[in-house]
């Protein structure tokens, strides 16, 4: 197959610009005030719930949720609720016209429970009333006859940790015949031999929590029935095109009868991926049935129990190393807890498997991963997507190995990390763009690592300090999970202003700003010429989902292609108008356009556009980019899972109070190789914001259930995300720009990578502060809560030393 034109464009711009320093660009890598900053400080952006004001005669939809975590439904009696004042109608599974399923990857999740409920949060009925209050009150009157079944809250009740075989139990998904969602494996080299030859072997068991996204905007949806039988849905979602698919399924309507608009988003972090489908489908069902606008809004508690969490993990790891400090082999058994439904579980499990040996040269590996159902809130997408879990385990192992070998953790890593020319464990050749070594060196320097490591070891008393390092890598975009494409359209209006359309959502991460920086750089126009359109399935191209750190690379490439095509047309015309020697001699520095050798003789941007309009030069371009198909062999876990990887090194400094077990983060340094910095503000905010979120994951955030499966901490006072008083004084941020041939100007993604290495760097710092070797093995669980750490401190009598 010949290479598509868009690949040529992206690669040629990479080669043309790879020697240019980032500081020499106009917009690439610059600090630009983001497109929505002024409206945001003025409180003006319209988030979904802000639209409710503007709607006349709406109905309110309340989801009545299961009171049992696992039960058969014998019958549902809605008659009392229907008689309640203000109630218009009650919907149950019988009222779904299409397919009653909102499963994201596999159809395992009824929108309205029919035969069974599988967690406390399953919707059994929708009560629709004239006010939300009435709908809620009437919801109490829905009477469901349940036959309770055993509740499983621990994945190790479903699967044996040694053999990973399914245990005898009452199936949660009896229709599937198994509660094992997916299995993945890696089989590379000769692991037995590696362990036989090893001088040092380190093994341990690790666990990580089901982290809650805790985005501040709870879910909301507004569905408006249209006169032609179609429906328009405003909904909090990261992925409007996925919402359309889900709604189409539930309503039995073709895609073009469903219009999805994603207003401003108050955070997503992956959590707004599939719950958007659910609230959109519920509201659309009601709106079309009752021919009135239908509103859904979640309280914080409803939000917490209705959207997915990060998969909790339990893993056994065993590593072998030679006396020279070289990694010889790794063996791992990993159990992920996907909760009641699959959500994105199969993909999360795959990503976890791919990354399960860390950014190291590993020639012998045996990894088995299993993702199982339990009766907890479903786990799905969360920034990092399976990768923070395995990196926690791997990076703790690396520190333990270094300790056993008597090497500094940094030195040990430098002996084993991936560099240009190496192959990943999957056999993928990394022929360029691996900036990990440089990232480590800079992080070490910026953090003053060696000096502090020594200093902290000499400190006495009940409050000790530690400094720890972790490295990471993260495959960009969706890899072998599915069709990996993106698209945008750029429209230059006749007055020279520019309309920018993409299906990419800005949930706060600012990736649309990256796209503008790219378009502005290529076209040569000030960024203020651009207006960003909201994602609207009726008018923007399908950019693919806003997930997987893919926007800057994938949608960035599509933007680059669209802008490049426009620029080619304009260059040719301008060259003609100005009499330049060739079109590539044209400089656009809007409002001025001139030949490179005659800057004093210029035409204006507006004149050029007007002329293009009359001459029929295209002023609207569609840009498309498709990643090369990924390759994955299920039997061996080898292939080319992702087209590129982001690398990073993180250093954290902590203070551990041996009397209480409380850990405070004092300082942090993050250095990421993101190929090329496109949007500096966004990149820095990711480095910092990812760190803060990772701190919560490392130290304070966990979800707790009662024995019957009720979430115990669905509020901000009981679910501890970091506050302004918990953050370290300063987070040093730096970037390595190793370049990537198929990224826009060489760029790679940073959205998810920014959380992957945080928890292990903090845990490693804590272990360093504990100092005693055996105690360090005890730091094998996150969050490292005070009570957990206190147990370790007590067990190894660290206070007395």
């Amino acid at each position, binding site marked *: 197959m010949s290479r598509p034109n868009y690949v040529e464009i992206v690669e040629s711009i990479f080669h043309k610009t790879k020697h240019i320093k980032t500081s020499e660009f106009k917009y690439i890598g610059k600090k630009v005030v983001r497109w929505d900053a002024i409206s945001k400080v003025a409180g003006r952006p319209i988030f979904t719930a802000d639209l409710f004001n503007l709607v006349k005669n709406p109905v309110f939809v309340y989801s009545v949720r299961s009171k049992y975590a696992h039960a058969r439904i014998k019958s549902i009696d809605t008659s009392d609720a229907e008689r309640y004042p203000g109630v218009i109608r009650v919907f149950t599974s019988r009222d779904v016209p299409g397919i009653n399923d909102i499963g994201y990857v596999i159809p395992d999740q009824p929108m309205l429970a029919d035969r069974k409920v599988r967690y406390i949060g399953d919707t059994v009925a929708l009560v629709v009333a004239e006010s939300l209050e009435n709908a809620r009150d009437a919801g109490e009157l829905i009477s469901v006859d349940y036959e309770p079944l055993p509740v499983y809250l621990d994945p190790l009740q479903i699967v044996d940790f040694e053999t990973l075989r399914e245990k005898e139990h009452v199936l949660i998904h009896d229709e599937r015949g198994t509660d094992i969602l997916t299995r993945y494996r890696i089989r590379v080299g000769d692991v037995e031999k590696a362990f036989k030859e090893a001088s040092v072997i380190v093994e341990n068991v690790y666990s990580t929590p089901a982290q809650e996204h805790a985005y501040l905007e709870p879910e909301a949806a507004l569905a408006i029935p249209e006169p032609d039988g179609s429906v328009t849905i405003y909904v909090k979602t990261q992925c409007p095109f996925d919402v359309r698919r889900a709604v189409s399924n539930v309503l039995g309507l073709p895609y073009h009868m469903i219009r999805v608009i994603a207003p401003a988003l108050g955070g997503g972090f992956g959590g707004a991926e599939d719950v958007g489908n659910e609230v959109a489908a519920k509201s659309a069902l009601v709106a079309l049935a009752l021919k009135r606008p239908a509103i859904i809004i979640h309280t914080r508690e409803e939000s917490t129990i209705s959207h997915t969490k990060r998969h909790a993990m339990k893993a056994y790891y065993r590593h072998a190393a030679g006396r020279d400090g070289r990694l010889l082999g790794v063996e791992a058994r990993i159990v992920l807890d996907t909760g009641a439904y699959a959500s994105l579980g199969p993909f999360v499990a795959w990503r976890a498997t791919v990354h399960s040996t860390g950014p190291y040269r590993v020639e012998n590996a045996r990894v088995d991963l299993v993702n199982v159902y339990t009766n907890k809130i479903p786990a799905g997408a969360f920034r990092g997507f399976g990768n923070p879990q395995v990196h926690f385990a791997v990076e703790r192992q690396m520190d333990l190995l270094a300790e056993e070998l008597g090497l500094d953790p940094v030195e040990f890593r430098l002996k084993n990390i991936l560099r240009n020319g190496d192959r990943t464990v999957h056999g993928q050749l990394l022929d360029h763009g691996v900036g990990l070594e440089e990232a480590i060196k800079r992080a070490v320097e910026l953090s003053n690592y060696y000096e502090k490591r020594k200093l902290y070891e000499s400190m006495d008393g009940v409050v000790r300090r530690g400094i720890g390092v972790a490295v990471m890598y993260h495959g960009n975009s969706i890899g072998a999970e599915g069709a990996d494409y993106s698209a945008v359209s750029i429209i230059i209006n006749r007055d020279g202003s520019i309309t920018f359309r993409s299906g990419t959502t800005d949930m706060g991460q600012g990736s649309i700003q990256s796209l503008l920086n790219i378009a502005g750089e290529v076209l040569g126009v000030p960024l203020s010429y651009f207006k960003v359109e909201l994602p609207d399935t009726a008018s923007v191209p399908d950019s693919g989902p806003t997930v997987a750190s893919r926007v800057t690379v994938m949608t960035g490439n599509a933007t680059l292609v669209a802008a490049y095509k426009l620029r080619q047309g304009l260059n040719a015309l301008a060259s003609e108008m100005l009499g330049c020697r060739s079109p590539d001699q044209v400089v656009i520095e809007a409002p001025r356009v001139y030949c490179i050798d005659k800057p004093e003789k210029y035409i204006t941007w507006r004149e050029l556009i007007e002329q293009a309009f009359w001459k029929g030069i295209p002023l609207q371009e569609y840009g498309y980019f498709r990643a090369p198909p990924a390759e994955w062999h299920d039997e061996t876990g080898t292939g080319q899972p992702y087209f590129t990887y982001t690398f990073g090194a993180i250093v954290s400094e902590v203070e551990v109070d041996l009397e*209480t077990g409380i850990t405070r983060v004092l300082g942090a340094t993050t250095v990421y190789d993101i190929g090329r910095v496109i949007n500096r503000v966004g990149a820095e905010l990711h480095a910092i914001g990812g760190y803060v979120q990772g701190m919560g994951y490392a130290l304070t955030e966990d979800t707790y259930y009662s024995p019957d499966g009720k979430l115990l901490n669905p509020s901000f006072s009981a679910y501890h995300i970091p506050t302004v*008083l918990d953050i370290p004084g300063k987070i040093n941020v730096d970037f390595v720009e190793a370049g990537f041939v198929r990224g826009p100007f060489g760029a790679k993604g940073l959205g998810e990578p920014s959380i992957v290495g945080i928890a292990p760097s903090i845990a490693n710092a804590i272990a360093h502060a504990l100092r005693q070797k055996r105690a360090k093995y005890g730091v094998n669980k996150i969050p490292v809560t005070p009570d957990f750490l206190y147990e370790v401190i007590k067990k190894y009598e660290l206070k007395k030393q």
Partner: protein
Amino acid sequence: MILIRDKRIKPPKYLVDILRFRDQLSYVRLENGYVKIGALATPWDLSQSILHRDERFAGFRDVWSKFGTMSLRFMATIGGNIATATDFSDYLVLLHVYNASVRLRGVNGERVVPLEKLILERRKPDLKPGEIITEVLFPEPPVGASSAFEKFDRRSILVAGLANSASYIQLEGKRIIDVRISLDTTGLNRIPGRLRELEDYLKGREFSAELIEKAVEEVIPRSVAKYSDWWASGEYRLEMTKVSVKRSLLKACKRLGVV
């Protein structure tokens, strides 16, 4: 109100808004050897008063710095904090070590009740129908006395606290003339209370860090019971109670220039 909305407690028949009296009831004054605080004084009001300027009341600064969040410090009231009557009522914990009482006013007149008698059980102060708390009062502490409050948890703020404690101490040289200690909960009833056994142990002795260490180790395990829940085990809470009391005592002493 949140509890009413979330249907966790029965809605009352009448809900009377007493915040209209905020102007009259938000004072802090020293009067006839008593410190008097209007029931509707907010933590912010306290922060603007002598309570935050005089070392004899230093514990008030500690409570303030750990109380809710800054904006909530403009909304909460000292009377409300007491009437809520739970182990999370930080001011209640502190006021115990000042031997505080509350003035109650109802249709049948007025009465003054010591805090320890006021709280019957969790969320249940001894308020008669038609009665409201109008004032909190306690004897003005002598010079040479100070107090401290300790609260810590997984994160810094917007937390319940693993084991909250308050200490009041009066020294003569290094001799402990008077000492009062209170906890968010001394038993499984989860209401704040005094730790008299520990107070008696310390009274009259010469202050030293070792003494405090020894005292908490010896007395707390036998005089305090802590509950277990999903957040932390009773055993850990008990350990933290020792740390909390030790630290609040040391902090109070440090404020007196000892340590």
